[in-house]
């Protein structure tokens, strides 16, 4: 059982900033995210795109914002459960909550802050009738452990960065890598495209374009995929393989959170915006893009504000009746849980003769 003060569901910008604000109040945080890395949409969808409305940053890349937020909160030593989706929540007799992920990891905290954005990112599955039958039997939508593919025959489909990057990586591990895409053109970082070209020329990656996987063949596991290719003439053929990895991006779904008994309106969680962004269940808050209230704007900067106020309310729940006054970081500095201290340099007081 992982125990913490504030359990944050979603490691996007709002969740990461909540770690910092909680840390100032001496509250520890643990974050759960379905993605294998922190940053939410900023790292999954648009890491290399600029954002222009983060106060104090005339322009910042979404990936850099994520790195900065991680740097800003690191002295408060947040815990992470990544690559797992929060599945169920149970209220305990002592008023705390136990949140269990799809992998069975259990977390306990007196306060839960849902900072889930548009929901957890689920892979977009190609429209192949029998594909769900082969999931975990050779069909994978994420690559968690590259060793699984050592000396195996792998077919990857997709035309974006992840299809390119994993083809490059697995060409060193797998016995055979075939990359299939509907067009001859790929969209990705220039060096990835060039690297795939080079590996293709060397015979390390087999490229089939413009083509599409239309079926999966096998008895109890993947044995081959059926490919339809439309170059010159339309033809269909089988490629023998051990793994089929469709990489068509991810789409967010509110998912199991929708069944937690929270008041939901337009795919978002209703909160009390006049006070503390608490939901209809005391002790459960919703901050950032995942919540809604009159006048709500889905902006990162609004998420930061909501996270800050949520932490104040969490402090009151965790330390009932305890006195507190707001302190400015410039005045009081930042004391990390790791023993570090940041503080403003002392003014020099010296006489001038």
């Amino acid at each position: 059982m992982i125990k913490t003060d504030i359990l944050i569901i979603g490691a996007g910008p709002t969740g990461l900033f909540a770690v910092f604000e909680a840390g100032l109040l001496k509250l520890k945080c643990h974050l759960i995210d379905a993605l294998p890395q922190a940053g939410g949409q900023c790292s999954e969808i648009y890491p290399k795109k600029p954002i222009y409305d983060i106060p104090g940053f005339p322009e910042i890349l979404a990936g850099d914002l994520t790195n900065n937020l991680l740097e800003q909160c690191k002295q408060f030593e947040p815990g992470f459960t990544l690559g797992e989706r929060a599945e169920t929540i149970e209220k305990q007799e002592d008023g705390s909550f136990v949140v269990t992920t799809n992998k069975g990891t259990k977390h306990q905290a007196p306060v839960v802050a849902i900072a889930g954005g548009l929901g957890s990112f689920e892979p977009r599955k190609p429209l192949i009738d029998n594909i769900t039958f082969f999931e975990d039997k050779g069909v994978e939508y994420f690559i968690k452990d590259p060793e699984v593919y050592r000396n195996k025959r792998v077919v990857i489909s997709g035309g974006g960065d992840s299809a390119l990057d994993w083809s490059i990586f697995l060409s060193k591990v797998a016995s055979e890598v075939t990359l299939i895409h509907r067009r001859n053109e790929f969209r990705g970082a220039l060096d990835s495209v060039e690297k795939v070209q080079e590996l293709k020329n060397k015979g390390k990656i087999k490229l089939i374009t413009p083509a599409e996987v239309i079926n999966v063949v096998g008895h109890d596991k993947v044995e081959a995929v059926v490919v339809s290719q439309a170059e010159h003439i339309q033809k269909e053929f089988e490629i023998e393989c051990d793994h089929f990895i469709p990489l068509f991006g991810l789409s967010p779904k509110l998912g199991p959170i929708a069944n937690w008994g929270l008041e939901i309106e337009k795919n978002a969680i209703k909160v009390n915006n006049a006070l503390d962004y608490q939901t209809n269940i005391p002790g459960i808050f919703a901050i950032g893009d995942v919540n809604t209230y009159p006048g709500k704007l889905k902006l990162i900067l609004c998420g930061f504000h909501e996270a800050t106020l949520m932490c104040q309310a969490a402090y009151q729940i965790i330390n009932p009746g305890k006195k507190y006054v707001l302190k400015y970081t410039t005045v009081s500095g930042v004391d990390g849980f790791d023993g570090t201290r940041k503080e403003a340099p002392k003014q020099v007081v010296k006489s001038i003769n």
Partner: protein
Amino acid sequence: MEQDISIKITDREGVTHEVLAPTDMAMNLMEVVRSYELAPEGTIGICGGMAMCASCQCYVLSDTTLPEIQDDEEAMLSEAFYVKDNSRLGCQIRITPDLEGLEVELAPES
């Protein structure tokens, strides 16, 4: 109101809506759909309009002349599902007076 144009949008349930869209607010078709709530929040415009998610894919039903398809839109469509010859990404279609009478149908959610 002379800057508004009339557009017909068929939602994912098959219901056709005739809506007015302003041409002076730098809006795109995806945003028009969202502003009239013709698709549930969270199911359209997920990436915000960067041609990076295809949640605003639509089929163009009228013979309206549209802005030419750019590389990133074409690349995204080549990875999307339910794509037809008349598929476009709503976020890449800016609302201009030329689009008066445009008719589109939203592609299924995927």
